[in-house]
């Protein structure tokens, strides 16, 4: 059996999406900007996709800028906004647990004259919003806070933060790559200035995404050239993928409620099963996306778990250092104060609308013996008692 539980990394392209895209990869190859009707019909489809995506997030279609994905959207939002301010304000605020697409930009800005404040999270992964509010000063140019965390699924109170930023006159960006399609979002009621999303996290292809730019928000484009996307992002549109993203958005909008109920049920089943049948398993994060489960298996190492899962056809991911090729474990779990004993053994299971109960039960059958086996090998577990021992170092 093959079980794909790594949907926060990327998702299966929905069959409806593939179907909608195929004509644009074959016969409908016109340029959406052309004056002739051959190109024009592609332009119409791109416009339709813009409407579909706008409807999913409660935006006006002119506020949607198609990009190459979440990373580009994040870069464009943060750097484009700061560029438009000509360096008048030099303070920017983010969190300790952002995706590298935001974190990396802030680190870069920190080296080029900006003062960066990173707001910490507590052991549940919750953000200290009061601290964020207090950190805002007259020199603050921008606040960027992710909507939902890709590793733990923890959801931040974005509506509240957006209101705080609006009151204080600070530009607010949110990386909603993991939230769009999984949480109801209505930008007509939430004063968010900029919102990033990515197609391949909601059953559209990789390499397509969008940035919501509220009317009136000032932003210097990163890619300059043609007039596409209202002059905010030059380059001939990735028409097929845009159309795919439109269909994916429509699917998500129509199914978000029912889907989430089912996804949550399966996730909870997996969670309860694991916590019950695996020793020293602890849950990471509270108040989460319905599809995400991040568990630490204390005293054993994540890459080993992943490899053994892989051998029985189960795909998941890990915050362990070894698994990522880095030498250090997940910055998200470390920011939550997850001890090293647990951070190295963290596994993320992320579900989607395509996950079935049979798949969850298969994982629940295969995982406990893997954990037991690795515990037998671990020096941190006493052979006779099966209990953790403290190694004197």
């Amino acid at each position, binding site marked *: 059996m093959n079980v794909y539980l790594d949907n926060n990394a990327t998702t299966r392209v929905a069959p409806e999406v593939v179907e909608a895209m195929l004509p644009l990869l074959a016969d409908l190859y016109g340029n959406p900007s052309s004056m002739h009707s051959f190109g024009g019909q592609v332009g119409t489809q791109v416009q339709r996709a813009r409407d579909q995506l706008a409807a999913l997030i409660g935006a006006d279609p002119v506020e949607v800028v198609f990009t190459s994905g979440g990373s580009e959207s994040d870069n464009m939002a943060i750097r484009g906004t700061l560029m438009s301010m000509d360096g008048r304000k030099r303070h920017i605020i983010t969190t*300790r647990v952002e995706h590298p697409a935001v974190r990396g930009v802030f*680190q870069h800005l920190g080296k080029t004259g900006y003062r*960066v*404040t*990173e707001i*910490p999270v*507590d*052991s549940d992964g919750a953000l200290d919003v009061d601290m964020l509010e207090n950190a805002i000063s007259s020199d603050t140019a921008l606040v960027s806070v992710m909507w939902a965390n890709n590793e733990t699924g923890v959801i931040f109170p974005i509506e509240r933060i957006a209101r705080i930023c609006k009151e204080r006159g600070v530009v607010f960006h949110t990386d909603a790559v993991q939230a769009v399609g999984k949480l109801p979002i209505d930008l007509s009621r939430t004063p968010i200035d900029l919102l990033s999303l990515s197609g391949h996290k909601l059953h559209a292809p990789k390499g397509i995404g969008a940035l919501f730019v509220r009317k009136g928000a000032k932003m210097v484009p990163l890619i300059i050239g043609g007039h596409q996307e209202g002059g905010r992002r030059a380059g001939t549109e990735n028409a097929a993928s845009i159309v795919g993203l439109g269909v994916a958005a429509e699917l998500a909008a129509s199914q978000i409620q029912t889907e989430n109920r089912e996804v949550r049920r399966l996730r909870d089943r997996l969670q309860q099963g694991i916590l019950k049948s695996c020793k020293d398993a602890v849950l990471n994060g509270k108040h989460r996306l319905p599809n995400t489960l991040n568990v630490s298996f204390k*005293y*054993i*190492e*994540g*890459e*080993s778990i992943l*490899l*053994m899962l*892989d*051998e029985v056809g189960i795909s998941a991911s890990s915050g*362990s*250092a*070894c*698994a990522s*090729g880095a*030498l*250090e*474990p997940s*910055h998200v779990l*470390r920011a939550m*104060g997850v001890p*090293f*004993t647990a951070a*190295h053994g963290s596994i993320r299971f992320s579900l989607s609308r395509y996950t079935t109960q049979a798949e969850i039960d298969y994982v629940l059958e295969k995982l406990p013996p893997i954990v037991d086996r690795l515990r*037998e*090998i*671990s*020096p*941190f577990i006493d*052979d006779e008692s099966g209990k953790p021992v403290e*190694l*004197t*170092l």
Partner: protein
Amino acid sequence: MWDYNDKVKDHFRNPRNVGYIKDADGVGLVGSMACGDALKLMFKLDGEQRIEDVKFQTFGCASAIASSSALTELIKGKSLDEAARVSNKEIAEYLGGLPEQKMHCSVLGRDALLAAIDNYRKKSRGEQPEEVQVASDVVCACFGVTRQEIERTVRENKLSTVEEVTNYTKAGGGCGGCVPQIEELLTEINASPPPVREAQPKAAKKRLTTIQKIQLIQETIDREIRPQLQKDGGDIELVDLDGDMVVVSMRGTCSHCKVASFTLKFVVENKLREFVSDSLRVVEASSAEAGDEA
């Protein structure tokens, strides 16, 4: 996904000699939970002082488990002197090669073996055995890698670049602050023949009352540890002393180094052991209390 060959996968899936020897003659333990890999190795000698039985337990990735397994196969039946000559290179070769970034796993095996042999020799000389050789000369603070470890690995594997040193020992792979020092070390090592190793005697320390101990710990922190940390933007505070357990709250030395708290603990512990008492253990107060802003 790592590109492990079939032999590595086999030793990962079916590791040889996993387990525990109750009355082991030598026990070595290296690495730590913080580093993401730890290996406990133990052996029993036969009448002719050859390794009759050897067992290991490993916390780590697939290549760490496979390297441990390979090592035990390699040293079975050998005398301690022969076993001590098994290099990490041989471990990797036995496995048909490891991904370059995973070479440190084979070094871990080698270090555990040396620690176990050391443990046996100390015990047979009637000295208080230590399970681990306490690192004395830390070059890479992020991963607690000593000068001696780097030197040995560079010589055995004929390494010439910092990147190689990082792949083999992890040194330099955290904040990168020690990269210049590794460069210097490399030039130095590759220019000179291997030195004769000499033992470092530890000065005997007198018994202290708890009050004296706290004072001495505070002094050591103020004099030896805090100035160094503050220079890099970090800090340390003594919170409590409970027997030999020193509770401190700490802040990382460099913002990129996510394992800073672990390494700090390592460095702090070494300093306190050097200046106060060998038996001290350092633990970090719950990180929630030490709310710091990067």
